[in-house]
């Protein structure tokens, strides 16, 4: 991961906007960029693979600069990269072995690659699709342990939410295809920040149940941190981000959800004198959101 951070650093430096920096980006004709998993429903504690495939027109020895997104709670076990030249094309495959230690939905933002687009000579950020995984298996320590009616209902809401999301994505894709003059196989965007996938409301609600359990079971700093972490992961945010990063995510645009996030931030970082009141406020905010 350290090396990967360093790699991200290099691309960041190159993308600073200076002419020299822009000229240092590789010149690539990227024909496809995919980010998949060998299973969409991995089991808890069972290793699986995330796979990045990049197809490039032209022959290159090695592809550098593919940046992995934050993988949330997934632990990276290993990382293999292969670059294969076939005729006048290059195929790059990166396979990341990971394991999930917690159940629930994991939303992973797109992987990306900064390069000069050989087709028009402009610097661009090529984005893969985001990836959403549903980790099954035994629940965590404080996750509800039986499938109650409430949870079944929430599952139905989640499925409904994903179905609506999928329909929206298909509709947007059809609209985009209709507006484009010629089909282009990858995201042909200017340099933009990768945005995580917006989740349905079901994921934060699940996390809020979990957060509430943490805070009521043990109203301490550690519980406040655990509750904060659970909610952040539910909206696709990873460890290492700050609240300002999290509230910029599309999944956190709801002002009521933002109030919960701010209340948990206070509970996690305030002094011991203020913590009981901060946790009370956080619980009220959680209840307000669920209501």
């Amino acid at each position, binding site marked *: 991961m350290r090396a990967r*951070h*360093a790699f991200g650093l290099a691309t960041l*430096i190159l993308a*600073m906007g200076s002419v020299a*920096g822009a000229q240092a980006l590789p010149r690539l004709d990227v024909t496809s960029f995919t980010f998949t998993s060998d299973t969409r429903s991995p089991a808890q504690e069972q290793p699986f693979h995330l796979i990045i495939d990049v197809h490039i027109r032209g022959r290159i020895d090695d592809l550098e600069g593919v940046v992995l997104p934050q993988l949330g709670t997934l632990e990276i076990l290993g990382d293999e990269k292969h670059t294969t030249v076939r005729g006048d094309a290059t195929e790059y495959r990166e396979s990341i072995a990971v394991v999930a230690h917690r159940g629930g939905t994991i939303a992973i933002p797109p992987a990306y690659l900064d390069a000069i687009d050989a087709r028009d000579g402009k610097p661009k950020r090529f984005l893969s699709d985001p990836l959403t995984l549903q980790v099954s298996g035994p629940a965590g320590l404080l996750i509800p342990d039986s499938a109650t009616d409430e949870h079944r209902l929430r599952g139905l809401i989640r499925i409904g939410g994903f179905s609506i999301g999928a329909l929206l994505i298909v509709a947007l894709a059809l609209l985009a295809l209709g507006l484009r003059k010629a089909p282009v196989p990858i995201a042909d965007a200017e340099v933009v920040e990768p945005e995580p996938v917006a989740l349905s409301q079901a994921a934060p609600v699940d996390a809020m149940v979990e957060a509430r359990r943490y805070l009521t079971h043990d109203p301490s700093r550690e519980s406040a941190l655990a509750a904060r972490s659970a909610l952040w992961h539910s909206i696709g945010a990873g460890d290492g981000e*700050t609240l300002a990063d999290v509230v910029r995510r599309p999944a956190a645009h709801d002002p009521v959800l933002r109030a919960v996030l701010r209340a948990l931030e*206070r509970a996690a*970082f305030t002094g011991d004198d203020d913590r009981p009141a901060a946790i009370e406020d956080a619980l009220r905010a959680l209840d307000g959101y669920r209501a």
Partner: protein
Amino acid sequence: MNATPRDLLAALGRTIVGQHETLEALVLAAIADGHVLLEGPPGLAKTLACRALAAALDGEFKRIQFTPDLLPSDVVGTRIFDQSETAFSTVLGPVFANVLLADEINRAPAKVQSALLEAMQERQVTIGPQTHALPDPFVVLATMNPLDADGTYALPLAQMDRFLMKIVLGYPTREEERAILDRFGGEDVQPPSGIAGLDDLRAWRTGARAVHVDDRLKEYIVDLVAGTRKPLPDAGGYIERGASPRASLAVLRLARAKAYLEGRTFVLPDDVRSVALPVLRHRIAFSYRVQAEGLDPDGLVRACIAAVPAP
């Protein structure tokens, strides 16, 4: 008077169009009892911002235009022989002010810079046999013009370290420039005075010192500063020397000031991260490669900050 730092910031915002980062930095530095280095081309209201800060605080404002022939005594003061009294008397220099604008500090020779920077650090000045305490509060706002480098004396890193933060000013947006025409195109605009008093500022400083900083945030600050000393492999060739522990203290003080400005009694990771760049950017020695390759030094510092995960 019981004004808040937000009142002060709002008053400055009514005088200066845009430049929010600069105005906030001035307020933060005042709360954190530190000095600010402002770098930007001429005509970006640096002087007006400093004058507005002094006026809003009801403090005494003085300005020194640094030139190559300036002497230390022109800054701190001197002793002159009074023939009528047949004795030496002391004339205090312009450094005795609550807000001092040191304009184009890099145009004066090193001995003048040292005289000011020692005063900034020691908060007192010795003239002849007598030591004079500087006013409290005492905030130095020094400007540097990145253009016209001929005939300038670059500040050594050790002296740059004495500035709590360095702010780099950029040109206003089109809308801001249009608003500048409306606001300043006619009559002279006087900065609002008496928004807060010096006693208010002293109270804010006491309040900011009491702001809680979680242990994990202290670890985060140490990691951020240490990250500039052992930069990641890709940045290693660009950084010759990282920031000193004074940088860690500066981040801590400014993060507290930021939290206090926001009306909080506790620091958040966002407070630390938001003040890290202005604290670190002038405390890092970059190698020749940064200039040779046309890289943006701020980009490197941002990358070092981004490489450290927040708690």
